[in-house]
């Protein structure tokens, strides 16, 4: 072994010993390592080296195949996730009737009142509406207090019919 790292052995030992001791320690190391150089270990067999190279080449191929398989599995998993996501999206779209839900808004006041320019008539209509609402409120209160002789069912039905009529009238304007 003739290639040695360029290393200042004495300098290293001088961190722990005095100069003379450091020189001696460095010399001990050099002499010891010379013994190792003078008694070389056996060399590996040529056949072993050749077998190793074949084994390494096989290991490299195996590793590449494994890496390819891992990539393929990942790609399949990602593709499957996309497909599942797409299927779920389509199902949800179909369930909602194929069209996005429309939000219907309506004004609480009949359009005729807003569009009319006859303020006096509109005021009268509003007064009638207010009166009818107040009447219904009174009836509802009476029902709650059971003031109509305990015939709650028919009173409720009447009230419902009345409400329906008012509603119709209201929206017709």
């Amino acid at each position: 072994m003739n290639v040695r790292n360029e290393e200042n052995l004495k300098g290293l030992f001088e961190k722990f010993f005095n100069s003379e001791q450091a020189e001696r320690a460095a010399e001990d190391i050099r002499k010891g390592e010379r013994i190792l150089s003078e008694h070389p270990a056996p060399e590996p067999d040529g056949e072993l080296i050749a077998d190793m190279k074949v084994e390494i080449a096989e290991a490299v191929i195996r590793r590449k195949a494994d890496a390819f398989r891992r990539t393929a599995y990942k790609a399949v998993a990602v593709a499957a996730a996309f497909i599942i996501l797409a299927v779920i999206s389509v199902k949800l779209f179909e369930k909602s009737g194929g069209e996005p839900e429309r939000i219907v808004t309506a004004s609480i006041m009949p359009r005729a009142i807003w569009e009319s320019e006859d303020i006096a008539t509109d005021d009268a209509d509003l007064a009638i509406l207010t009166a009818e609402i107040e009447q219904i409120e009174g009836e509802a209160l009476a029902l709650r207090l059971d003031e109509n002789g305990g015939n709650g069912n028919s009173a409720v039905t009447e009230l419902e019919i009345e409400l329906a009529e008012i509603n119709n009238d209201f929206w017709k304007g």
Partner: protein
Amino acid sequence: MNTAKSDNLARIIIGCKGGVPECFSQLVDIYASRCYGYFYRLTGDNDVSDDLLSELFVKLVGKIGSYKGGSFESWLFKVASNVFHDYLRDKQRRKKLLEAEKRRLESKTTEIKQPDSEMVDKLQMQLGKLDADTRELIMLRFYSQASFKEIAKMRSEPIGTTLSKLHRGLKRLRELME
């Protein structure tokens, strides 16, 4: 290591990382002899050294990606040291199994194969007289050609400890060889 050699090694390592079998073959050509010497001096057994050397280089195929620069020799011999310690653990486990089996059967003792002393050179015999840690340190230093600083780092110990252990070990080995 001069610049040309260093550049060539860097090129080989890049090839290995890219999975080029020829580059691994070049690594084998450069380092097989030193790694074999390291294993042989630690085990004293040619067959075991053959196995460990093969294991080391096949392991490099999977491990080369973890080499992130710095001294390649230090990294390589750190892997080699791990391979050797795995072997020791496995040997210890097998020894325990063998002893358990021996007790169970209460039969004749099965001798664990010892290296043939006639085949072992003088240095190998004297190395066997050193404690395992010192022997490993001497071999690591000699075959990896790493600096004391690198070896101390590999062994996770202060440089003073490494220096002192190696100094004592080599001095003792010299005495044994005289």
